[in-house]
């Protein structure tokens, strides 16, 4: 029963009114949003060209490298698990693709399909191992990471006699595949098509998290798996699906990089896995799971891309690159935490 009033005709007096600003500040993305604005202002003031299309093209390129994987990794983190093999998986996928099109001389499209299936398989293995052994996913996927790292190097050396696979552009069907997956557009700025994929993946992930039942399951399973199971959420299926999504996206990124570079190194992707997790945390995901956002994660990836590219743009000594990245990330995460505390306090 609503009290009709001149000013708020449909407001229910039983429900407290939370102002628009307060509601905005409660969103997980708000911390990363403030962070990205701060980083953008910082580099625009210290570098010429950073805020121009030239600069946009460069830091969106780097951001998409991180963002395409950070979003599925964030979904997995919201679901309460980690995947440390995400970085090296891009290398494995790229190497498999490179091998299939150069040694048995496959057409690129069936090769891409096989590589994506390989990604799903690795994700399935990760998921099943984690769920059946009940070991922390950190440890299980660390094992997968080392296994893939060794396989990448060993098998590549064995097959090619060297540590990279090149001449991928000689494959049939390469041209169209490259246009869709690994080319650039809007010359002379050269935005990578990867950027469009990244934006698309972010939108799809956001829609899944916010508007579908599966998204609800992800939050539930990450918040409290036992309670979720008691309520009827298929915990096993959800978590395995998340692992499979992460590995398949990693395979897709590996394919894109191989398309762009026309070759692939055996060491590709190693070390990236922590950058994905950092982007997710900067974007508002809790390490304990159950809370986070895909858009926030992409903004986190954007922050990292800006920082990586802003440093050479500003002419800062690149030996200190890691120091700058560390400071910027610490500030972004602290800002995140502070704003979230403020939001929780200012609920009324």
């Amino acid at each position, binding site marked *: 029963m609503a009290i009709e009033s001149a000013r708020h005709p449909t407001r229910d007096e039983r429900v407290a009114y939370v102002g628009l600003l307060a509601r905005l500040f409660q969103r997980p993305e708000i911390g990363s949003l403030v962070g990205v604005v701060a980083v953008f202002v910082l580099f625009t003031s210290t570098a010429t*060209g950073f805020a121009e299309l030239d600069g946009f093209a460069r830091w969106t390129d*780097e951001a998409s490298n991180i963002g395409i994987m950070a979003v599925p990794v964030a979904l997995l983190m919201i679901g309460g698990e980690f995947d440390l093999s995400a970085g090296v998986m891009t290398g494995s996928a790229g190497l498999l693709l490179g091998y299939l099109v150069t040694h048995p001389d496959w057409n690129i499209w069936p090769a891409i399909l096989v590589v994506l299936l390989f990604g799903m398989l690795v994700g399935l293995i990760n998921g099943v191992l984690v769920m059946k052994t009940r070991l922390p996913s950190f440890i299980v996927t660390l094992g997968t990471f080392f296994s893939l790292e060794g396989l990448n190097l060993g098998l590549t050396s064995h097959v090619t006699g060297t*540590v990279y696979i*090149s001449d991928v552009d000689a494959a049939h069907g390469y041209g169209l595949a490259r246009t869709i997956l690994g080319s650039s557009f809007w010359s*002379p700025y050269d935005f990578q098509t990867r950027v469009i994929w990244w934006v698309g993946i972010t939108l799809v992930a956001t829609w899944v998290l916010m508007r579908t039942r599966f998204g609800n399951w992800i939050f539930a399973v990450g918040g409290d798996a036992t309670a979720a199971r008691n309520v009827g959420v298929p915990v096993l299926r959800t978590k395995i699906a998340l692992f499979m999504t992460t590995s398949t996206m990693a395979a897709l990124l590996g394919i894109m990089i191989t398309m762009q570079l026309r070759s692939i190194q055996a060491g590709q992707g190693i070390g990236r896995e922590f950058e994905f997790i950092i982007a997710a945390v900067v974007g508002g995901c809790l390490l304990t799971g159950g809370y986070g956002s895909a858009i926030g994660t992409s903004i986190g990836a954007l922050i990292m891309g800006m920082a990586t590219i802003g440093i050479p743009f500003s002419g800062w000594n*690149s030996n200190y690159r890691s120091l700058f990245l560390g400071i910027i990330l610490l500030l972004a995460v602290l800002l995140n935490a502070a704003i979230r505390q403020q939001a929780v306090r200012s609920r009324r």
Partner: protein
Amino acid sequence: MSERDELKILEEAEGLSRRDLIVKGGIVTAGASLLGSPAVAAAAVKRSARADKKLSYAVITHGAGDVFWAVVKKGVAKAASDLGVSTTYSESFNKPDKQAQLIDTAVARKPNGIAVSAPNASAIKDSLRRAEKAGIIVITLNSGVDQFKQLGALTHVGQTENIAGAGAGQRLAATGAKHLLVIFHEAANIGLEQRFAGAKSTFKGKVSRILVKGVTDVATSTNEIRTKLQADKSIDAILALNPQMGIAARDAAKGVKSKAKIGTFDLSSDVIKAIQRGQVLFAVDQQQYEQGYLPIVFMYLYNTNLNTVGGGKPVLTGPGFVDKSNAAKVSALAKKGTR
């Protein structure tokens, strides 16, 4: 003969033959499986090896699984097969403490000699001293040309990075360039710093440097170089210190349509193709195949004939320059992974 006797004899005969079969069969089966078993085979090999006293060498480098070190590894393997010795090869991925550990591990297996790269001599000094105390000879390769005597090595096989860098700087200066960008793909690598110093000494102009992500992420490295070229349009010469970074520099320069002249260190099939196409001006070739091959030969000569090489000085494998004039010939060899 009574029936019972006949039966008894038959029984005995059957029993014996059955027992016989089981026992004899058992012995034959056991013997066959033992003979076929790998354990025995290995023991036989070990016995014959001990009889021949096959020389064994361990090679421990600071490599990171990249193209450059793959060629060194091939050189080591070829020397092993040519000389009939056994070798092992391990890499520390540019981590000095890991290299010290790997040296200690190799020494525990008592090889006749070890060959190490020494980008960080102080980190491996103790491990090498322990090796020498155990009677194991040491040769350094690739990096550490100024420290090989202190480390107790017989000689050093490599390229003096300063001279190589100076040669590269000279070639780029000859093109008339005024601003050189040097691309570092590894942090805290003394060899790279020496190349940079050498190039700086002969390039008559401004020299800048940039540290990029490296060979584990060529896409990002290309992006970073391109950003630098965009931010500073006065750069008209680029020197990469690694073949993959040379290709990254080429792609970055192509992206901004820069006319910068590109030189790189070390070869790969992509770099040779780029040289033939005129996209890269030259590659400084330190002929790392020899850095894998020669230490084994020198240690073999010392072990079998107490021969020394170098006369107290390093044995130089470079710099050789590969440019458009000789790229085609080198190309066929690079495809085999030996250049």
